[in-house]
């Protein structure tokens, strides 16, 4: 579809540069519907599996005694980890005044808000009595780390939803003013909250955004720390570890950046936003990913060396299960995916391209899921007393529900891009108008000589 036709859908004059960002909202291709269809099929299979599980009981999963937790809890930790993509990265970049953030913050923040639901959903799926889940609100006991999770994730969900919504306001107002279609306009009118773009409104908005950017950081850090506490507060070998808090937060940011790069890669490709999401963005995020990869390795190394050298038999059993035993294939795939592949691709400027960082991100996503898996399973399978040991064999139910989680997340994400600009229009514009000058002045202020 050419741009003249798109102009017909808009009221008045539109700045040429904004049109590509609005294109996904104004026009939907056949490929998009195809993708939605495939996703819906995957979701339906998952829903079927879930209904089956609700009716029969958790017995139709691969769980058993003593493997009480499996893929669902792995997914829970994984999805909550991915949620660190958005809010945390975007808040840090905003506070650090990293100018290159402008085109990427929105796509990051959406990941956070959406993916949190799937973290929560996986906990609910894992419950033997999901219909009683509201008891955590009515009869919650604060002595349980699970309740710390409920509180922390609840606050995080609210805070990151606000943090997504605030910078969205001016863009929604823009849509309200520019789109011809009447029903669509009234939709945006509701969400625009009477935004007129007056000087006073801008002042309030900018203040609110910067306050939220500060507030969400400790909340985000607390969320994944508390997730790690679910394991660390127990007395089980290799769960009961003081390093778990920072280790999980690092892993969360690590997998979060990878998820963000992936999302950006597909937005850029399918909506032809090459001019906005440039190789430099991927390069910078790639460097961040590289740093996180090394940091993740440092934690993994410390954690395992401590267990090995201390040589407590209970810990050693879990350690060997990971290094040479039944979980070795997963463990070493994890090391390859989280360290070796990203290190090779990202430490070289020639391979740190758009495609290169995408490949590294896919690798990190797979690796970090396996990391959560190899934290949950080997410990459960090797309890302190000598039982008959076995392996955990998940059933198709668990795989179908997991696939449906991913599919629903992708579906909601691409639907978001159909209703709201996935690149912040006003922030990019602000970058051009103010950012360039501001940065120049800032650099000058670093240098010797009077201002």
């Amino acid at each position: 579809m050419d741009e003249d036709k798109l102009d017909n859908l808009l009221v008045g004059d539109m700045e040429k540069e904004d049109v590509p960002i609005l294109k996904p909202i104004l026009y939907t291709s056949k490929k998009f519907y195809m993708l939605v269809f495939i996703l819906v099929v995957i979701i339906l299979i998952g829903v079927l599996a879930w209904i089956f599980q609700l009716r029969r009981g958790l017995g139709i999963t691969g769980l058993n005694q003593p493997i009480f937790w499996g893929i669902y809890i792995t997914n829970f930790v994984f999805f909550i980890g991915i949620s660190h993509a958005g809010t945390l990265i975007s808040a840090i970049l905003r506070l650090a005044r990293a100018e290159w953030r402008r085109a990427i913050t929105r796509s990051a923040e959406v990941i956070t808000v959406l993916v949190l639901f799937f973290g929560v959903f996986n906990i609910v799926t894992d419950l033997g009595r999901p219909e009683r889940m509201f008891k955590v609100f009515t009869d919650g006991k604060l002595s349980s780390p699970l309740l710390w999770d409920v509180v922390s994730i609840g606050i995080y969900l609210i805070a990151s939803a606000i943090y997504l919504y605030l910078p969205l306001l001016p863009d929604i107002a823009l849509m309200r003013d520019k789109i011809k279609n009447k029903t669509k306009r009234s939709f945006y009118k509701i969400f625009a909250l009477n935004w007129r773009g007056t000087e006073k409104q801008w002042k309030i908005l900018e203040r609110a955004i910067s306050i939220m950017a500060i507030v969400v950081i400790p909340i985000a850090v607390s969320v994944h720390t508390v997730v790690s506490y679910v394991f660390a507060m127990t007395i089980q070998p290799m769960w009961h570890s003081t390093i778990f808090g920072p280790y999980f937060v690092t892993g969360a940011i690590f997998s979060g950046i990878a998820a963000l790069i992936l999302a950006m890669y597909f937005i850029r490709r399918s909506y032809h936003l090459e001019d906005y999401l440039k190789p430099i963005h991927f390069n910078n995020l790639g460097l961040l990913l590289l740093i996180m990869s090394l940091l993740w390795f440092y934690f993994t190394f410390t954690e395992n060396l401590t267990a090995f050298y201390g040589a407590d038999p209970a810990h050693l059993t879990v350690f060997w299960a990971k290094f040479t035993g039944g979980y070795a294939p997963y463990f070493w795939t994890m090391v390859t995916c989280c360290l070796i592949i990203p290190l090779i691709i990202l430490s070289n400027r020639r391979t740190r391209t758009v495609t290169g960082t995408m490949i590294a991100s896919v690798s990190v996503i797979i690796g970090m899921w396996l990391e959560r898996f190899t934290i949950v399973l080997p410990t459960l399978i090797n309890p302190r007393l000598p039982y008959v040991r076995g392996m955990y064999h998940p059933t198709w139910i668990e795989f179908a529900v997991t696939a449906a989680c991913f599919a629903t997340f992708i579906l909601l994400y691409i639907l978001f891009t159909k209703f709201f600009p996935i690149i912040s229009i006003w922030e990019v514009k602000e970058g051009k108008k103010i950012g360039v000058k501001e940065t120049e002045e800032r650099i000058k202020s670093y240098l010797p000589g009077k201002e």
Partner: protein
Amino acid sequence: MPRWGMVIDLDKCTACQACVVACKAENNIPFSSPKEAGRRRIISWMSILSMMEGEYPNLRARFIPRPCMHCDNPPCVKVCPVGATYKNDEGLIAQVYTQCIGCRYCTNNCPYTLKYFNWFTPKWPKEMENYLNPDVSIRNKGVVEKCTFCHHRLQKAREKARVENRELKEGDYVPACVQTCPTEAIYFGDLDNSKSTVAQLARSPRAFRLLEELGTEPKVYYLSEGEWHG
């Protein structure tokens, strides 16, 4: 208030598993199929842990019957998000089936792996349905259950004592496993009463508890085997 505890003399135990069967019959524990048993889904509040120690030819087999340890410092209780498992005044660890949401956090934090989960709706062969114990509620799918030291027997004994207008005495009540044991290897009573058999046996130099180093303070004591065991 008595502090109920148990002493199991491993010297007397023949690993006949009568306690296991008695417990299942007493507490309405559902039958398991060979298929589910192979998948390690058996519920058995009393179970015998068999351990092989040493290497051939110097082997030694050990059999340790394990009910819930009813820890004084129970790791399972503090992690429960809804208070479905708690320690009562007499030190018994109770599980409220109607409150349990089935998150299985307690099962994971039990270092002895002695809490059990209902993977399916419980089933009995038709002929067995008439033999269910009316004093013990049946647990539905999706909740955690465990040994209660036959708490329903304690309630009955207490009621009886009240009718007879007297204090509850030791010996008014014992769990089904204790009652059944053919070699009388299991003792039960008040650990706080220094004259009781269990309190005296618990002070024996042969006495030990499982994973004592974790500080869970179990109320189940074991008397270790003598040297003649090969």
